[in-house]
């Protein structure tokens, strides 16, 4: 069991900065994030994009912003549970929250701050009728265990790095046949990988169907074939055991939506006094919350996290008086371990 004072769900910029503000009040934090690295959207969607509205930074790359935040919070020794998403929440006898991830990791804290942004990044699913019927019966959105494809016929869709890398890997003595169906001849993925796929296609190790798109899935209990629409040749059917559509990740609010929080249009309603939710002890900050006048800006998330930890402190220590201390006076005192 991981124990902390404030359990922050979401390690994006807002969640990260909250560790700093909590640290100033001697509160410890632990962060949970479904992505394998901290940084949220900044790291996952646009690390190389410049941001121009962070105060005192005329221009900063999103990736650099995350690096700086990690440096800024380092003295406060936050814990991280990365690559796991928070799934269930319960209250124990001591009135503390216990949050369990999809991998079963348990966390316990008196305060929960949801800084989940737009939600958990999940594979983007093609809007094809009957697709859900074949999930885990031939259709997989992520490759967990490549051994599953040994000796099988596999179709991969997509033009990004994961599509290219898996097509290459599975074609090298793992799958029986590998077919790559892609909407154009060019690829988004790394040029070296793209060249390798084209070379393997030349050698007949990968069947590359360009200018085409899977539009239908067929089979009785298990997937048996795909209906593919080619730009010029029209419809064709490809017999296969597996289809792995790799179309990137898209954020979804996910299990948090079922925690009994007041939700409005995929966002959690909060009181702007302290960004508390309808559940006592749970706060929501950053892009995940909503209130009259809400702006989804990193800048505003920082402000929300700052006010939120003040409220959390008063909740934890109702008898202590809190005095605002400027960091310019005494600097900061981190935690030893």
């Amino acid at each position, binding site marked *: 069991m991981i124990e902390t004072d404030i359990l922050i769900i979401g390690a994006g910029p807002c969640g990260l900065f909250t560790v700093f503000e909590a640290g100033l009040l001697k509160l410890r934090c632990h962060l949970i994030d479904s992505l394998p690295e901290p940084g949220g*959207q900044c790291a996952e*969607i*646009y690390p190389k*994009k410049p941001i121009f509205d962070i105060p005192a930074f005329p221009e900063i790359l999103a990736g650099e912003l995350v690096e700086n935040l990690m440096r800024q919070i380092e003295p406060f020794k936050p814990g991280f549970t990365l690559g796991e998403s928070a799934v269930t929440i319960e209250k124990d006898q001591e009135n503390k929250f216990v949050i369990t991830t999809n991998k079963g990791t348990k966390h316990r804290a008196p305060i929960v701050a949801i800084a989940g942004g*737009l939600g958990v990044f999940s594979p*983007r*699913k*093609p*809007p094809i009728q009957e697709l859900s019927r074949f999930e885990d019966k031939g259709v997989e959105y992520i490759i967990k265990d490549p051994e599953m494809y040994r000796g099988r016929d596999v179709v991969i869709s*997509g*033009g*990004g790095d994961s599509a290219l890398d898996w097509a290459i890997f599975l074609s090298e003595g793992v799958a029986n046949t590998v077919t790559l169906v*892609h*909407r*154009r001849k*060019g*690829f*988004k993925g790394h040029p070296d990988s793209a060249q390798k796929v084209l070379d393997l296609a030349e050698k007949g190790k990968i069947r590359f169907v360009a200018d085409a*798109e899977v*539009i239908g899935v067929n089979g009785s209990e298990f997937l048996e074939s795909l209906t593919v629409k080619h730009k010029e040749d029209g419809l064709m059917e490809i017999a296969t055991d597996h289809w792995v559509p790799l*179309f*990137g990740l*898209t*954020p979804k609010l996910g299990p948090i939506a079922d925690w009994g929080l007041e939700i409005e249009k995929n966002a959690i309603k909060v009181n702007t006094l302290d960004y508390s939710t309808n559940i006592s002890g749970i706060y929501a900050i950053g892009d995940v919350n909503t209130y009259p006048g809400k702006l989804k800006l990193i800048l505003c998330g920082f402000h929300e996290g700052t006010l939120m930890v003040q409220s959390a402190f008063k909740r934890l220590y109702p008898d202590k008086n809190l005095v605002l201390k400027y960091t310019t006076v005494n600097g900061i005192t981190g935690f030893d371990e």
Partner: protein
Amino acid sequence: MSMIQIIIVDREGLEHKLDAPTDMDMNVMEVCKASKLPVEGTCGGMAMCASCHCYVESDHALPEMSEDEESMLDEAFFVEENSRLSCQLYLKPELRGLRVRLAPESA
């Protein structure tokens, strides 16, 4: 403020005539969101997600597609010859009467 009218066809086939300013650096995705049409625009308009995929049905001369936009359409579904990311279509007087159909939503 100079305004143009553009037509958005939603996923139910309903036409929406929207008045939009050409001097506010606005793109079609933003105009749709401002009018509460169901366009996600998850990345905020950087051509970094594909949630504002649309089909341009009128024959207006459009800006060339950037490599970012072209690559991002790889992650969209039901991509056609006239597919674009609506966040990359900035409103200009030349786009008066632009007709755009929203692409199916992905799950």
